[in-house]
């Protein structure tokens, strides 16, 4: 995604500053047995959170988010959009692939507060009512998954792969779909499914 920060978003500097204020509590060397259950402090701290306004699958959301929240955790834990999966939380597996302004990104590496004004598409936003996106149908037709856990990321990534025009050959699809790991090993069928859906465009 773009290196430029969207207008009004939190900068890396303010994020680090707010994180530092969290960790700035003086460390003690005393070894204390912690109380079993403390009474919870307020769930959201104004100093470490802020507002973000974005569209997700066509719906406008204005949300207060903890600065530390990734787009992935925002979708899954705050908005209940659990179709997007967390496989590694480190940008290495692609299970969390979503579209931000039409480009595929790892939701786990994208801070939610950077996305003010962004348009986000997740797997839940691909079908048109009951009619599946052609790539979703192609995944079923070619059995391009087994456990299904990487599938939302594969399909979102595949739609972008097609839109980017990286479907000239099986080898090209393999290369441009290599950011999405499938541990069940459905790769050859994923390539076939992307190829089929690309041909229908």
């Amino acid at each position, binding site marked *: 995604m773009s290196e430029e920060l969207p207008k009004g978003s939190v900068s890396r500097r303010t994020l680090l500053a707010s994180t530092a204020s969290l960790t700035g509590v003086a*460390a003690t060397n005393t070894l204390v047995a912690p109380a079993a259950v403390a009474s919870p402090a307020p769930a959201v701290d104004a100093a470490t959170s802020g507002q973000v306004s974005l569209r997700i699958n066509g719906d406008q959301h204005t949300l207060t988010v903890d600065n530390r929240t990734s787009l992935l955790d925002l979708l899954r834990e705050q908005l209940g959009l659990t179709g*997007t999966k967390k*496989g590694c939380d480190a940008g290495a597996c692609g299970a969390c692939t979503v579209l931000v302004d039409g480009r595929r990104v790892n939701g786990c590496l994208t801070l939610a507060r950077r996305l003010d004004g962004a348009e986000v598409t997740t797997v*839940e936003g691909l079908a048109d009512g009951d009619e599946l996106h052609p790539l*979703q149908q192609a995944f079923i037709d070619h059995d391009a998954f087994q*456990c299904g856990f990487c599938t939302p990321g594969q399909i979102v990534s595949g739609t972008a792969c097609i839109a980017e025009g990286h479907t000239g050959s099986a080898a090209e699809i393999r290369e441009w779909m290599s950011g999405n790991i499938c541990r069940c*090993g459905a*790769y050859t069928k994923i390539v076939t499914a992307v190829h089929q859906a690309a041909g229908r465009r």
Partner: protein
Amino acid sequence: MTQPRNAVGVGHARVEGRLKVTGQAGYAADHNIDGMLHAVIVDATVGRGRITGIDATRAQAQPGVVAVISHLNATRLTYRENPNSNHPPGERLQALQDDRVRFFGQPVAVAVAATLQQAQHAASLVTVAYAAEQPALGLGEGTPNAAESYARGDTTGALAAADVRMTMAYAPARTHHNPMEPHATVAQWDGDRVTVWDKTQWINATQAELASVFDIPRAQVRVVNPYVGGAFGSALRPWPHVIIAALAARMTRRPVKLVLTRRQLYFGTGYRPAYDYRITLGADRRGRLTAMEHTIRAETSSYEDFREAVTAAGESLYSMPNVRIDYRSVALDVNTPIWKRGPGPATAAFAIEVALDELAHRVGVDPVELRLRNEPEKDEGSGLPFSTRRLRECLTTGAREIGWQRRARPGTRRDGDWLIGIGMAAGNYHTVSAPAQARVRLNADGTAFVETASSDMGPGTYTSMTQVAADALGLTLDTVQMRLGDSLYPPTPPHGGSMTMASIGTAVLNGSDTVRRQAIDLAVKDRNSPLYGTAPDKIVVRAGRLTVRDQPGRADTYERLLARNNRDHLEAVGSYTPNDAGQRFSMSAYAATFAEVAVDASLGLIRIRKLVGVYDAGRIVNPRLAESQAIGGMVGGIGAALLEHTVTDVRDGRIVNANLADYLVPVNADVPDLKAVYLNGEDPHMVSLGVKGLGEVVHVGVAPAIANAVFNATGRRVRSLPITVEALQ
């Protein structure tokens, strides 16, 4: 008469496909509950020792933090003996119950907070002090446990007298399952009853473990698990985090979600242990084996003695009069391993199949021919006849498919900068099954559902079971609903070991047959039925329509039959109990895998060009899903052969590549042309379905086939896995 088989054998698309491609299939961590807290585990940062103190004051001062739980304040847990959850012999780890650290990464505390971000941050602020000791980490450093031994003939004498004698040491690396779905548990208590949404391959094991740890009756534990995002064995027993999630929920009196991080999966769940597998073989000059000695050492933890069926292939894959096997686990300061796809045979096949390739090269016999010369007439380990063994056909079919005749002498075939090689390996996986039950209900509207506790981690259990039930009930696929993944459903064995279709499939078949017969009985005794008075064995059911064979005009339907008789449903619990075939026959699925590889002559890069697998796996219930299983097993084999290696820091036991950027698994660009061929047939002795199991055998033999192809390409023999660029330098 027997029902027509319309669905079984047909490559139907997955019945849950739509849910999976739209993101609606709910995995454990997808479950959210109002008021739910998030838990993040703090792991030990020493490889062995004692905790001398825990400072959680900074963590507890954070906004949203509800609790930091460690052995200092955790509820004492009962941890009753539990023989029902796949625990290896020994004493299982008791989560957050004492100050001992048994391996690097062991859970020592858990931070619980209102949001995930708060819990993650709080966990990072917990300070733990240790009295650290030097852990024992290498196979040479630990104490070997008692030997599992096998012997026949006079191996020492035969080896001394052999025309050809060779000794080799093989070293497959420790590898991790790395399913895409991290292990996760959501726990919710209601008084003394607990419900967990848990990633597990054995619902009833998780249920039994929670009952024993929290000292409550099993009926008060419900485990829900409709979808599993891959597992490959990693979820065959409940790990400490399952207990920690339930403990945190109990102590905070709130629902708790605990998802292991990818890093934590490397020590929070099991793995395939590293092995030191030594072979001394004796043969005549034509490559006929006379003796083989196997000395096998494998990692286990200091607190449990993990074993797998690694001796079976040495006992019976090939014919020879003299065999001696000594298999010992070695107790180390690591967490306990667990079965991983093809457990035992996959490791043994690497050693044995590479050894046979070495022998073939030494005596100048074609490797396929060498295997045919050593093909046994019966199982020489048990003395039993084979139920079916079509390995010869697998070998010859695979040789034809890969173009085996193109194979050249090692290191002599080139394509530009690339050295080209072809290799092969055989393999088998013992057919197993275990008692299972399934509830089948036929509804008044002519639809049916089937409930059974089994998981579906990806092989297609929802679909294949639907096919079995549809045929036996005489319904179309779309009118049968398969319900899996809930401990409220009838119990099942582990969803692993390639036993699901044989065990649970047979229970589904039995229950469905029973319900169909109930309906037929009802019809022939119903004066208002067109089938009144007909002999029950003359009636077949198709698409919910009961007809007399040869008299298609005389028909009733389930819907009309149940309405006339004021029945809102018919129901039966089907069951499966293994017969004695296992005592009368040696039963295995067999595979021959062929690989063509290219190795960059100057850089040592290895690329797979083509893999062909040929399988004797009995009846194939769904060819489309079976093909996916096979190519998946091959992809896993590419990983084992060329990429996967869990690397441990010898100083403290830290796993240094505990992430998917440094622990490499195959990606799309690593996988070109894969071909799977299933021999037509069935195993008449196994179960009524005639299946032998697929999930394991398709993986066994892939890594040695690739290793042997690399030798054929380069003339360099690598006896360790993975075969890396460095190994070829």
